[in-house]
C-alpha cells in the first residue's frame, strides 16, 4: 500500500515538474517586460564598459565627455527599471546608482547592531569621479563593473519569483510615488542638474508602460482608469515644464495635484486588493495613510513602550495623566529641582528658545548641545544629534540618569516616585496591563512619559493642509517650497513629509557633515565630533543627524550647538557653502562648498515656506500640583522644577 502511494506521488511529481518547465518558457507579458528592460540595460552597461576600455587616455576632456554621455544613456535605461529595482533589492540597487561612496548602515533592522560599512558604486559615483583632478581607469571600471554585477543579480529566481503575483507591484508603486515626492525631482541621485527633468520624463513614460503590461497580465487586480488618467495628466504636466531650466520646475503643483492623489489611490488599492508584503522595505509604512502629508504615513518610534498593547481608552488616559505629572515633576532629578519641562517648555514647542544650550545640573556650566524639540521626535529613526539612541525610551532614561542633565539614579527615583501614593496607586492599577512585569519598574515611568509627550506630534501645519487641498497658501510659500526642492538644494537631505533625514521607505536616518562653526564669525569649526563619538570613522567625523525643519520658525536656536539664532543666519550658512565655503577646513563636508546664489527675495520665500510648517498645537497647561510624598522634604518641590 505504502509503496504504491510513493509510486503515485513520484509520477505526479514528474507531471508537475514537466508542466512547470513549459510555464517558464512562456513568461507573462509583464515579466518579459521586466526581463527585456533588464537585458537592454545590461547591454548599455556593457557598451559603457567597452567605451571606457577602448579609450587610450580617459583624462582628456573629450574622453570624459564621451564617458559622461554614455553614463547618461545608461542611466536613462536604468530609470525604466528603478520602479522595480529599488523595491525588490535596495542593497543591489545602491550598487547601480547609489548616491554615496560609503554608507554606514542605520536601517531599522540594523540599528540595534554595531553600524557597518557599505560601499557604493554605479553611475552617480562614476560621474562624480570623472570630475576629480586625478582619475584612474581601474577605479572607474570597478565602479561600472559593480553596477553590472548588481544588475545581473536582478535576474535571479528569488527576484523574478516576486513578479509572478500582483502583490509586489502595488508596493513598488507606493515606493515610486513616495520617491516622486522626495528624491526623483530634487537631484538626490543625479548630480547633473540638467538631466533631472529629462530623466524624470523618461521614467514617467517607462512606468506608464509597466502599468499597461501589469494590467494586461493581472486583469483581476488592475490599476483603475481613474488612476491611469490621472497618471497621464501627471505626464502631461511634466512634459509641459521647461526642460532647460530645472529651477523653474513646479514641485508644489506636481506633488499636490498629481503625486499625492495618485498615492491616495494606490493606498486604497493596497487595502482593496489585500496586498501582502514580504519585504522589510515596507516595515514602517502604514497601510491606513491616505496622504503623504499625514502624520500616520509611517511609524518612526514606538511611544507606548511597556504599554504597547494597551488599547483600552480608560487605561490610556490614565497613563497619559501619569506621564504628564511625571513630565512636570522634579522628583525625577537628583536634586529635585529639575524636570523634563526645565528644558522642554510647552510654550516653546517643547524646547527652550531662550538659551543656546541649557544649564547643567547644579549650575555647573552649560551642556554641549542645544535642546531638541520633542515635537515630531517620534518620527525619527535614531535620536539625538549623533543618533546615539534607538528608542524614545532609551533617550528618556539617558537624560534622567545623566549626571550633568537630571542626575537621577534608577533606584532613588523608584523609591521617591513610589513614596507618592498617587503614583503608586495609579501604576499599581495599571500593572495587569503589563503582564511581563511583576512590579512597577522604571520602564513604566519612562513609557508613561513618552506616551504623554508624543501626543503633541499629531498636529498638522498649514503646508500639510495646502498639500491635502484643504487650504490655500501664499504664493511666497509655493515659491519657497519650489526653491527648497530645487535651486536651494535643501530637499536632497530634508525629505517630505517631515523634512528630516528619514527618506522613503522611512527606515533609516541620514547624517551630514556641514562644517558648522563654533561661532557666528566662522573662526573655527565646532569641536563636537558628532556621530564620530558613536561610530568612529573617517566619514562620520563632525557628522550630525539631519533634523526636521517642521516648526523650525518656533524652535530657535539652530544647529547642534545652537550657534545660529535666526532662520536667515541658517540660510546664509547654507548659501555660503557651509563651513568649507567660509574657509574652514572640513575635508569630509557632504554639503557642497559652492554658493547657492540665492537672492534676498528667494531667501524670504524659503523662510515663508518653513514658517508654513509651523504646526497648530494647543498650548499645554502646567498641572496644579505634584503628588504628595511620604517624605516631607520632597513635598517642597515645585511643579516644573526650579530651573
Amino acid at each position, binding site marked *: 500500500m505504502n509503496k504504491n502511494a510513493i509510486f503515485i506521488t513520484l509520477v505526479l511529481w514528474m507531471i508537475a515538474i514537466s*508542466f512547470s518547465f513549459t510555464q517558464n518558457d512562456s513568461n507573462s507579458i509583464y515579466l518579459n517586460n521586466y526581463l527585456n528592460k533588464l537585458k537592454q540595460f545590461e547591454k548599455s552597461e556593457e557598451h559603457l564598459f567597452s567605451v571606457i576600455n577602448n579609450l587610450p587616455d580617459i583624462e582628456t576632456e573629450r574622453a570624459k565627455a564621451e564617458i559622461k554621455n554614455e553614463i547618461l544613456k545608461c542611466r536613462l535605461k536604468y530609470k525604466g527599471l528603478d520602479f522595480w529595482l529599488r523595491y525588490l533589492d535596495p542593497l543591489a540597487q545602491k550598487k547601480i546608482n547609489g548616491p554615496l561612496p560609503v554608507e554606514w548602515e542605520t536601517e531599522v533592522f540594523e540599528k540595534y547592531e554595531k553600524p557597518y560599512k557599505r560601499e557604493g558604486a554605479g553611475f552617480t559615483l562614476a560621474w562624480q569621479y570623472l570630475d576629480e583632478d586625478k582619475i584612474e581607469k581601474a577605479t572607474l571600471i570597478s565602479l561600472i563593473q559593480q553596477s553590472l554585477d548588481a544588475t545581473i543579480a536582478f535576474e535571479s529566481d528569488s527576484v523574478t519569483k516576486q513578479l509572478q503575483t500582483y502583490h509586489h507591484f502595488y508596493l513598488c508603486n507606493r515606493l515610486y510615488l513616495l520617491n516622486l515626492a522626495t528624491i526623483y525631482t530634487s537631484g538626490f541621485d543625479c548630480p547633473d542638474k540638467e538631466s533631472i527633468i529629462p530623466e524624470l520624463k523618461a521614467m514617467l513614460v517607462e512606468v506608464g508602460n509597466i502599468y499597461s503590461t501589469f494590467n494586461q497580465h493581472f486583469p483581476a487586480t488592475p490599476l483603475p482608469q481613474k488612476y491611469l488618467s490621472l497618471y497621464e495628466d501627471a505626464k502631461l504636466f511634466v512634459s509641459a515644464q521647461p526642460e532647460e531650466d530645472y529651477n523653474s520646475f513646479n514641485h508644489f503643483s506636481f506633488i499636490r495635484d498629481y503625486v499625492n492623489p495618485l498615492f491616495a489611490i494606490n493606498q486604497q488599492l493596497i487595502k482593496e486588493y489585500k496586498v501582502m508584503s514580504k519585504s522589510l522595505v515596507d*516595515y514602517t509604512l502604514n497601510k491606513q495613510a491616505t496622504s503623504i502629508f499625514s502624520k500616520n504615513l509611517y511609524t518612526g518610534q514606538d511611544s507606548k513602550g511597556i504599554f504597547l498593547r494597551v488599547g483600552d481608552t480608560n487605561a490610556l488616559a490614565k497613563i497619559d495623566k501619569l506621564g504628564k505629572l511625571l513630565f512636570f515633576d522634579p522628583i525625577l532629578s537628583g536634586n529635585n529641582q529639575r524636570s523634563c519641562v526645565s528644558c522642554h517648555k510647552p510654550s516653546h514647542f517643547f524646547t527652550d528658545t531662550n538659551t543656546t544650550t541649557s544649564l547643567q545640573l547644579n549650575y555647573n556650566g552649560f551642556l554641549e548641545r542645544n535642546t531638541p524639540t520633542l515635537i515630531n521626535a517620534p518620527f525619527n529613526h535614531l535620536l539625538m544629534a549623533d543618533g546615539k539612541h534607538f528608542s524614545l525610551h532609551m533617550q528618556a532614561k539617558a537624560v534622567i540618569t545623566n549626571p550633568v542633565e537630571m542626575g537621577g539614579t534608577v533606584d532613588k527615583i523608584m523609591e521617591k516616585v513610589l513614596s507618592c501614593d498617587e503614583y503608586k496607586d495609579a501604576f499599581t492599577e495599571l500593572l495587569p496591563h503589563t503582564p511581563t512585569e511583576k512590579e512597577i519598574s522604571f520602564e513604566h515611568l519612562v513609557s508613561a512619559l513618552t506616551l504623554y509627550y508624543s501626543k503633541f506630534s499629531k498636529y498638522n501645519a498649514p503646508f500639510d493642509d495646502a498639500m491635502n487641498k484643504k487650504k490655500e497658501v501664499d504664493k511666497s510659500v509655493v515659491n519657497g517650497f519650489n526653491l527648497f526642492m530645487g535651486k536651494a538644494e535643501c530637499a536632497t537631505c530634508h525629505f517630505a513629509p517631515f523634512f528630516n533625514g528619514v527618506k522613503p521607505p522611512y527606515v533609516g536616518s541620514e547624517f551630514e557633515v556641514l562644517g558648522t562653526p563654533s561661532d557666528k564669525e566662522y573662526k573655527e569649526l565646532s569641536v563636537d565630533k558628532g556621530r564620530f563619538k558613536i561610530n568612529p570613522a573617517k566619514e562620520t567625523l563632525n557628522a550630525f543627524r539631519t533634523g526636521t525643519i517642521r516648526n523650525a520658525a518656533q524652535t530657535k536656536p539652530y544647529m547642534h550647538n545652537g550657534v545660529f539664532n535666526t532662520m536667515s543666519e541658517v540660510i546664509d550658512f547654507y548659501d555660503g557653502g557651509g563651513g568649507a565655503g567660509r574657509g574652514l577646513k572640513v575635508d569630509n563636508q557632504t554639503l557642497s562648498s559652492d554658493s547657492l546664489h540665492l537672492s534676498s527675495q528667494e531667501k524670504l520665500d524659503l523662510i515663508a515656506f518653513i514658517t508654513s510648517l509651523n504646526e497648530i498645537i494647543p498650548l499645554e497647561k502646567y498641572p496644579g500640583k505634584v503628588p504628595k510624598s511620604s517624605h516631607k522634604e520632597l513635598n517642597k518641590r515645585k511643579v516644573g522644577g526650579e530651573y
Partner: protein
Amino acid sequence: MNTNSNMNKIVIITFIMAAIAIANCTTKNQVKKTNDYSSLANIKTPKKKLIEINYNLPDDSLSMNDSAKKEFVKSFNKGQIVYNLICAKCHNKIVNGLEVVPDFSLPQLMDYEIRIQYPIHQERLSPENLSATELDDVVNYLRYKKKSGVHF
C-alpha cells in the same frame, strides 16, 4: 495561453490534493495541531510558574558573567510570557491530551523577518503589537527552552 495555464493549475491542484490525501493515510495521527481557538480559552498562563528552570544556557555560557546570566534569564522569562500571550494560541500543540510548546528550528527563528513571513504574522507581530525587544525575548525563549521533542 490562458487555457493552457488553467490546465496547468488544474493538474497541479489535483496533484496537491492527491499528495495531501496520501500523506494523511501514511502519517500516524499522533500529533494534532490545535487550530480550534475555542478549545484554547483555558490555556494556563504560567504567571507564577517561572521559578522552575526550564531553559538551557547558550553554548557560550561559560564566558557569561553573573549579570549576563541574569539578563539572559530575565529575557527568557519575558519571552515565555509574551509567547504565551501572542504566539501560543496558534503554535502550541496537543500531544496525548497535553499542551506542548513545539521546538522551532533555528532558521524558523529568524528574528525581524518573522514579522513579515506570513500574513497572520503581519497582523499579530506588527510593531504595534510586539516590540523589537519583546521579539528578541521570544526568540531567546524559543531558542533556549528545554526541548519538548515535538517539532513545529
